[in-house]
C-alpha cells in the first residue's frame, strides 16, 4: 500500500523528523486558507498523487503571493497529471499539499528499502538529491552509498555517521542527519514499511535539515498490525477493477492489450501473458484466480475482465493440481452461465481429472474453443482477437 506525501510527512513529524510546515487541502479555498495560516511570503503548492516526477509534469509550483497560491491551486486541482510513473493516461489530482517554502542550500537523497540479496533493510544515501535516484544508479552509481542494517543490532550510529560523511555533508549537520537516519529507521520498522524515501532531504541556507519530500510504501502482508495506517488508503488512486479483484480474492492487473487472461497461479499467469505476446497478441490483464479457482472467483474474474473495454477474447488457462479439473470445469460452466460473456472464449485445462473436465465443458451449453497445450490456447486466442 502506498501513502500520500502529506500522510508520510505526518508520520515523519511524529518521529521527530523535521518536515516543512503545511496542510493537505481538497479545494482552492482550503488551499488559500492554509497558505494564509502559514504566513511568510513563499509557499509550495503540491499535487498529491501516488506517483513520482510530479514537478516535471507541472504538479508542484512555487507561489510568492496568496493570489499565486490561488491560481496554482486552481490549475493543479482537477488537472490530469502525467508523469513517468503514472503511465500515459495520467492521474487526476484531487488533493493538494500547501507548504511553507524552504530556502535550499543543498539537496540529498535518503532511502530505506528491503534488499533481497542481503535479506536486510538497506540505507541508501546520495549527494544527488532531488532527482530520480534510479537514473543516478545507472549513470553514476559511485554517488550512492549503502549501509546494510543488522536487524538484531539496529542502525549503528558510527556506520551511519560514516555514510553521512561520505556523501559530502558539512560537518555542522552531521549530528542532525545521523539522528534523522535513526528516526527514519524507526519509521520503517514501526510502520512495517517496504520503502521509506526522503528525496530531497534539504540543507537550508540557515543550516537546518528538512525532509522536503517523503514517500512511504507499506507491506500489505503486515497491514493487520496497523489498522490506523490501513485507514489512510486512498482508493481513488487505484484501478477500480483491481480493487474489485482484491475483494473477490483475485490478483488482477490491467494491461494495454485485448486478450483477457484467467489463470491459476501467478507464475503460470505471467507465462500465459508471455506466450500470448510470443504468438503476436497482447494480454489485456494479469489475473491469478489462485489455486482453488472456485465458481465465485471465476465468475468474478469474468465480470472484471468484461469491464475492460478493449477485451476481444478471453483465454482461460488452468492447471488443476489438488483442485481437480472436473470441479474447475463445472465452476467455469456455472460462471459462464451467470455472466453473459458474448466474446470468444478459449479454454485450456490440464492436470488432475482433465478428461472428465473436458467432457463437462463439451457437454455444457457454453460456446468455447477448446485448446490442449499452452501454445494451442495462445494461438487460438490471438487468432480470435484478430477477427
Amino acid at each position: 500500500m502506498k501513502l500520500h506525501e502529506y500522510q508520510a510527512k505526518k508520520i515523519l513529524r511524529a518521529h521527530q523528523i523535521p518536515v516543512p510546515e503545511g496542510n493537505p487541502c481538497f479545494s482552492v479555498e482550503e488551499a488559500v486558507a492554509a497558505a494564509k495560516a502559514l504566513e511568510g511570503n513563499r509557499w509550495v503548492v503540491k499535487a498529491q498523487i501516488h506517483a513520482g516526477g510530479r514537478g516535471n509534469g507541472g504538479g508542484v509550483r512555487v507561489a510568492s503571493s496568496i493570489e499565486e497560491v490561488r491560481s496554482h491551486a486552481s490549475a493543479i486541482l482537477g488537472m490530469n497529471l502525467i508523469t513517468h510513473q503514472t503511465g500515459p493516461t495520467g492521474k487526476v489530482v484531487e488533493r493538494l499539499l500547501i507548504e511553507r517554502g524552504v530556502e535550499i542550500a543543498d539537496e540529498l537523497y535518503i532511502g530505506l528499502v528491503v534488499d533481497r540479496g542481503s535479506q536486510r533493510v538497506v540505507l541508501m544515501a546520495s549527494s544527488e538529491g532531488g532527482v530520480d535516484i534510479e537514473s543516478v544508479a545507472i549513470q553514476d552509481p559511485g554517488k550512492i552509498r549503502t549501509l546494510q542494517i543488522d536487524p538484531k543490532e539496529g542502525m549503528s550510529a558510527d556506520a551511519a555517521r560514516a555514510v553521512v560523511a561520505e556523501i559530502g555533508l558539512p560537518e555542522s549537520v552531521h549530528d542532525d542527519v545521523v539522528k534523522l537516519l535513526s528516526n527514519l529507521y524507526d519509521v520503517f520498522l514501526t510502520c512495517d514499511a517496504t520503502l521509506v524515501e526522503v528525496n530531497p532531504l534539504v540543507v537550508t541556507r540557515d543550516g537546518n535539515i528538512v525532509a522536503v519530500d517523503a514517500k512511504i510504501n507499506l507491506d500489505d502482508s503486515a497491514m493487520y498490525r496497523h489498522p490506523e495506517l490501513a485507514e489512510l488508503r486512498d482508493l481513488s488512486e487505484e484501478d477500480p477493477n483491481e480493487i474489485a479483484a482484491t475483494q473477490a480474492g483475485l490478483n488482477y492487473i490491467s494491461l494495454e492489450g485485448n486478450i483477457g487472461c484467467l489463470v491459476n497461479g501467478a507464475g503460470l499467469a505471467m507465462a500465459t501473458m508471455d506466450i500470448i505476446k510470443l504468438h503476436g497478441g497482447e494480454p489485456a490483464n494479469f489475473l491469478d484466480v489462485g489455486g482453488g479457482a472456485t465458481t465465485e472467483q471465476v465468475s468474478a474474474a469474468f465480470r472484471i475482465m468484461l469491464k475492460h473495454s478493449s477485451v476481444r477474447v478471453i483465454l482461460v488457462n488452468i492447471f488443476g493440481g489438488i483442485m481437480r479439473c472436473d470441479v474447475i470445469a463445472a465452476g467455469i460452466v456455472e460462471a459462464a452461465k451467470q455472466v453473459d460473456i458474448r466474446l470468444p472464449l478459449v479454454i485450456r485445462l490440464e492436470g488432475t481429472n482433465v478428461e472428465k473436465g473436458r467432457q463437462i465443458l463439451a457437454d455444457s451449453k457454453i460456446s468455447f474453443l477448446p485448446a490442449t497445450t499452452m501454445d494451442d490456447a495462445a494461438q487460438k486466442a490471438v487468432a480470435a482477437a484478430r477477427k
Partner: protein
Amino acid sequence: MSILIDRTSRVVTQGITGKTGQFHTRMCFEYAAGRDCFVAGVTPGKGGQSVENIPIFDSVIEARDKKGCNVSVIYVPPRFAAAAIDEAVDAELDLVICITEGIPVRDMVSTRRRMVGKKTILVGPNCPGVITPDVLKIGIMPGYIHRQGSIGVVSRSGTLTYEVVDQLTKLGLGQSTCVGIGGDPINGLKHRDVMAHFNEDPATEAVVMCGEIGGTDEEDCAKWIEQHMSKPVVAFIAGVTAPAGKRMGHAGAIIAGGKGAASEKIAALKAAGVHVTQNPAEIGALTKQVLG
C-alpha cells in the same frame, strides 16, 4: 538419489490441525513412502492428540526428541509462521519447508537473521514444497504428475512448475527432485543454492529452472552456473510482458528500482551457457533436445 529429501527424512507438520495442514499431510502421507516419513505434527496446546494416526506434540523439540524428526513443513497462518520457522531452527532440524503465503517482510528479515550460523536450511516461504518423485512429497503439489528420473527442477512458482513437470513426464523425462523456492522477496534457498545441490547429486543429469521477474536471483544463479555448473541447464523466465512497478501476484515479482526485468535475466543466463526458451510450452521439448 535426490537432493534435500529422501526416504530417510522424518517429517513433522507444523500447523497439522488446521484445514490446510491436515489435508496436505494426508495427501503426503499417502504418497509413496510418506507413511514411513510423516511421523509427527505440532500444534501448541494439542499435544497428545493425533491426526490420521500421526501423533501431535506441543513443540518441534518434543517431536524431534520422540520421533527423530529432521525436517519440518509449515502450514501455520502468516502472522505466526515466522515464529514457527524460528522454532524449527532452534530445534536444529536439517530442513524447514514453509508453505505459508503472506508472511510480513519484517518478520522474515528477523527470522533470516536468526538463522545466520545455524545448520537449518529453509525452503520458501510461499512455495509449493519439495518432492522426490516416487519417494517422498513434502508440500502441496499434485504427486501423480511426477515420475522418478534424472531432471532436477527449481522454480519460484507453483502451477507453472506443475506445467513444466507435466511436460517433462509426458516426454518420458522423470525428475530427481523438484524444489519450489517460493515467490517472496525474503526467502531461504535461492536458485543458485538449489543449483549447487543438483550439481552434486549423481542422480541429476540436467536442471530445469523457472525464474520470474523481480530481484537478481536469476542473475546470481547465472554467474554461479558459468563458474561451477557441470550439467546442462534449461531455463524459462516468466514476466517478459510484465510492466514495471506492478506486483504480479507474488510479493517478489515486481520490476522496481530499475532491476528485475526478464530481459536482463534471460541475457545473463544465455551468457552463462544456459538453454533459455521464451516459450513456456516448449520447456519440456527443449530439455529433451538438450539431453540428445
